[in-house]
Structures are given as C-alpha cells and as structure tokens.
C-alpha cells in the first residue's frame, strides 16, 4: 500500500512507530582488483557469511530474510513481515562508508538476493549445456498438514506455484503463490503466504488430488520484474575464462528461451583467475566482453522469472575446483562512497524513483564496485532506514 503522502510517512514513523534502522558490516577479502563488482554476502561480518549451501548443483536455492540460504541468515534483517492493512515496506535512507587504504571511490548497490544456482565441478569447468533446476514433481500426503514429497532439497520460504495433469490437492489452486515450510531434505508443508510460513500456519491435508503435480519456483518480486542475474565466485577456478554464448531464461512476461546478450561478438566473457576470486562478479571488469554487474537481458525484457540453462563452451574453459553461484537479484538503490572513511547518506524520499520497496521476506545484501584495488580486510559499513505504511 505504501504511503499516501509525506504527512502519512511522518505519521507512520513518528506516531505509529513503523520505522526501523538496521546496520551491517562486511570485511572485504581478498584484495580486490580494480573495476569489478562484488557481492558481499559471501564475506565475513554481519550479517553472517554465506557459503551458498546446496546439495544439488544448478537447483534454485531461495534466499529469504527469515531462513537465509537455508543454513545461514545472510541478509540484513529488516523487521520481518510488517503489520497493518496491506502494508508495504520501503527504504527511506541509506548510509555507507568504506575504510580502506586503497580502492576509492566506491559504488555500493543494495540488492534483494532472490536466490542462487550453485555451480561446482564440471558445471564450472565443463563445456556442456547446464540445465537449471526450477521445478520438481511432488507427491502429496498427510503429515502435520498437506505434506509434499519431492526430489530436491528446497529451502523454507521458497515461493512456488503448482500445476497438475489432473487435480491439485484440496487447498491448492492453479496460478496461486505458495511458500514451502521445509520439513526434511525431500519434504515440505505448504503455506499460503510468507507470513504464514514464518508462523508455521500451513495448508491442512484433505486429499492428495490426482495426476502428476509439478511445483515451479517463483520470484519474490512478482513475476521476477526487475530481477537481474550475475555469476559470483565463491572459490576461484585455477585457470580459464570461458565465454557464454548460449543461454536461456524466462522473462517476467513468462516467455522462455530468452537469451542473455549479446549473442554475437563481443560475447559475455568470464574473468580469468586473477579476477575470479571469492565474491567477485566474474563478468565485471575493464575488458572486452564484460558488461558490468548483471548479465544483459534480451530486448526490452523487464525481469527474470528463472534461468533455464546456459553454456560456457567457448573461450578458455575454467580448470580446477572453482565454485560459482548464478545469483538472481533485484537492485534497490545505489550510493557512492567518495573516499575512505567518509560516511555518505542517500535520502530516498525526495528523488525518483523514491522509497524503494522491500518485498516481504527480502534478503538484503550489498554489492561493491571499487574504482581501484580495494585493500583486503576493509570494513564496508552501512545503515538502512525502513518504514512501512498501511
């Protein structure tokens, strides 16, 4: 619902107390090379460092405020589900500083990390088609509610929709969002909202439906609108730097077989080892074929619902034991930090777009871009002011 006016913002904050300020601090590592983007949730500090856990390569692991990556709360907490009548949470102000002997100036980008697909082993070094796992076949039963049994280990808080060849179990509907409440590595109960999932309020069992039921992941941001994709290194490969000439994603309009661009030279190129260290966005650098923080979307696509596949089959294949995450994020705002130790603030009430919305369950993380080679062990400190209406 947002805010109806500036007076409403002031009233919600000062009278109704619908305001929260949260801080974070991350420590950079290793030394960064100049001109690259970094996703900081894999670094030490507060929130805790994520190791991007996943028992199955290429499956989508949803990240949320309450459950993090399924193991670690990796996002900045922002007060949970806001109370009120159809409330929406927004960012009023952000502040940040970086204290480093080198690397200034910096640009910081706040993102909502929707989740990631983990790549390891041959999925990093190979040249074959990588097919991402965005669906699962589910079998319904009764255990503490409507229990779903499936193949892959989906995180609690994963937003899904169901389709079926027959009839869905009572309590589930087509074209409707649900949230998983993980019970084990192959089972989950189902909630009708994120808030209900947090509260443990689940859909009761009535029947198992009929036919074959399929579950498909959904983005927290409706239809994946505004969602971008980036490859982030967790463990650097030994050598290489492949090209990505072929890819497929489903855009926010639901159209599949979309491709990251360009699909002709100059192709997207992944960085060599020196620029593929932990936390680095491996297609960002001051070189040909690097297109910044995010993989360029096709034509006028406004977002990504899911990544379906990609191939790294040209250039120089990676070798070694590298681990990479294909992350899906929704950018929220940017702030420039001009010099070391300078605290910079950005008022997001009085500019366009204003008051970036924080979706329920958002997993907030920072991305860092350094003009120079940011010294290792440098603290990146931030504070965010939130308010909600409704």
């Amino acid at each position: 619902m947002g805010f109806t006016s500036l007076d409403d913002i002031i009233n919600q904050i000062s009278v109704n107390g619908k305001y929260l300020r949260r801080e974070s601090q991350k420590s950079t590592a290793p030394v960064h090379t100049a001109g690259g983007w970094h996703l900081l949730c894999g670094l030490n500090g507060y929130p805790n460092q994520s190791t991007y856990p996943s028992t199955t390569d290429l499956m989508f692991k949803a990240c949320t405020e309450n459950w993090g990556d399924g193991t670690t709360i990796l996002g900045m907490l922002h007060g949970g589900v806001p109370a009120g009548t159809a409330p929406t949470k927004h960012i009023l102000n952000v502040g940040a500083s970086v204290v480093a002997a080198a690397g200034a100036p910096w640009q910081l980008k706040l993102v909502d990390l929707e989740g990631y697909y983990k790549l390891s082993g041959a999925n990093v070094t190979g040249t074959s088609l990588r097919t991402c796992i965005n669906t699962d076949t589910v079998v319904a039963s009764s255990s503490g509610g409507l229990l779903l049994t499936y193949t892959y280990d989906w995180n609690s808080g994963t937003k899904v929709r169901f389709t079926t060849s027959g009839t869905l179990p009572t309590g589930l509907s087509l074209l409707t969002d649900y949230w998983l409440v993980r019970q084990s590595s192959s089972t989950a109960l189902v909630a009708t909202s994120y808030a209900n999932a947090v509260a443990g309020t689940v859909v009761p069992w009535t029947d198992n439906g009929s036919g074959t039921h399929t579950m498909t992941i959904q983005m927290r941001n409706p239809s994946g609108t505004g969602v971008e994709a980036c490859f982030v290194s967790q463990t650097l490969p030994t050598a290489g730097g492949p090209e990505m000439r072929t890819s497929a994603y489903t855009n926010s309009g639901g159209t599949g077989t979309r491709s990251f661009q360009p699909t002709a030279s100059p192709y997207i190129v992944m960085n060599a080892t020196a620029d593929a260290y932990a936390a680095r966005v491996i297609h960002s650098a001051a070189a040909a074929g690097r297109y910044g923080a995010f993989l360029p979307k096709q034509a006028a696509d406004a977002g990504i619902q899911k990544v379906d596949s990609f191939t790294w089959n040209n250039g120089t294949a990676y070798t070694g034991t590298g681990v990479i995450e294909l992350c899906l994020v929704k950018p929220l705002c940017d702030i420039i930090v001009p010099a070391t130790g300078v605290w910079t603030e950005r008022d997001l009430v009085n500019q366009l777009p204003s008051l970036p919305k924080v979706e329920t369950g958002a997993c907030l993380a920072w991305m860092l871009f350094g003009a120079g080679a940011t010294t290792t062990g440098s603290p990146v400190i931030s504070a965010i002011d939130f308010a909600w209406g409704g």
Partner: protein
Amino acid sequence: MPGFRNVRKLAVSVSTEGRTRTSTIRKTPVQASAAGAWVDLSMAPGIPYPNYYASEPYIGSVLSPWRGILHGDAVAPKSKHVHVVSLMPSAAGMTGTYMLLDYLLYYPFIDLDAVGETQVLDNGVAIPRYVDGEGVQAFLVAVAPTTGAGIFTFDYVNQLGQPRTSPVHTMAASAVSIASIVTALPGNVNSGYGPFLRLLGSDTGIRSVTSLTMSAAGGGLGALVLCRPLMAFQLFEAGTPTECVLIQDSKILPRVYDGAYLNMICQTPSSVAGVTVLGRMEFAFSED
C-alpha cells in the same frame, strides 16, 4: 508515442516494472591533455573498455553498442531514455564539463600532414539513427600525437542533403596527445570554438563527410567522428558525486536509440592523465 506520458509512468517503469538498465562507468585516461582541452573519453582505458578507432583508413565505420556505455539491448518499439547520471571525479583533473554523445560514424586515420591532398572519405556505410543528419556534429580527435597548428577544411553533406565546404579550421597551436580533440584549444584564428567542427552558414547537421584537405601540416593522425550530442553536465569537485535525476533536474530525458554507441567527451581544467571518473548511468524505457 515514444517516451513517457507523465512522471508517474517513468517512476513506475523504473521502480516497479523493471524497464530500466544500468551501466557502470570507470574511466582512467592515460594520455596527458592540456588545460581546457576537450578529451574523448571513449579512448580511455576502463569501463567501457577503450575505443581506438582502429579500422581501415578513410572508410566510414560504426561502433558496436556493446562496446560503449552499456544501455542494453534494442527495445523497439519502446523508446529508451537517459534517466540518471551519477559521476564522480577522483581528482581535479577530471572535473569540468562532460557531454554524453551517441557516436554515429567515424572516419579513421586521416593524415594531418598531407598538405594539399584531398583525402577522400568512403561513405559506403550510411550514418545510422539520425539518417538525415539533423543535429549531427563532428569532431576531429588525435589518434596519433599532433605537432599543432594545422589548417584544414572538410567537405560534407548537410542535413538537407546539400554538398558543402566547411569554414577554415585551425588545430591547436601546440601538440596534443592521443584522445585530445585537435581543434578545441585556442591557438590561432579559426580555432577554439568548442569540441565540434564548425559548419557553414545555417547548417544544423551533417549527413556525411566526403573529404578533408589540409592546407597546413598539423602532424599526426586523426579520426573524424560524427556524433549526436545527447546531454551535458558538470562535475564540480574532486571526490564529490554529481547526480542528475533528469526528470527532476532538467525535465528532459534524452532519447537513446537502439544500437547507439554511447560515450563521453570532457573539458577539464588540467590534464586528465591518471585521474579516474567513476559512476553509473541509468536508462528507462517506455511502456509501449
């Protein structure tokens, strides 16, 4: 209808409907420049990576949009516009006036020593996006260091399709390094009129350039670049970001056509060598 019908349409496009693209910019020129000179930042190392106008001499060529300031794939039939510019110079050498240009076509490796020779330029490739040439300007940038004081004219086709010969131009009196615009410093008469070459009479644009003739040697080599200026802005102070949210600041959202190669030129109070400019540009595209 291109563009946005109202402010709300723009805000919604960017904030909730994902019709936006963001580009990271980080440029650190290596070549020295004179105080007050105009410098072509497309030739500077960094992000986007440098352009050297390296193709066959005299033949008009276009630049790939994927090698300039990234604004994303084609969005037609929607229209794309510059929405936010946020840049910060790391030192005083990169403060000054900046222009965002759509680089349309260039003619490389023009010999600035070839006195008396009419250097015929090949126009097998037509000017893209602004096909009538309306509003298209030209600048001559050094791709090899000059010795200075050269004098030249050029023949061109104006926005009405009429063949014209330009006024006499004088290069900067002193030598300029690679990436400096050769006519942009006062030196002799007929120089120092800004970054763009002067056109004849009331001409308002260039459709093509057909030849260039040196009447006095200026040394070095140049690339003659046809461009469409999109916007200008100031970077005021080292270590201080300049942020322009164009709908609020100027009420003008320059349109970026599909396929545009975007980059910048700048005029600074001292040499740009070794100084960094960092920031981003955001683009928004329409609903329909």
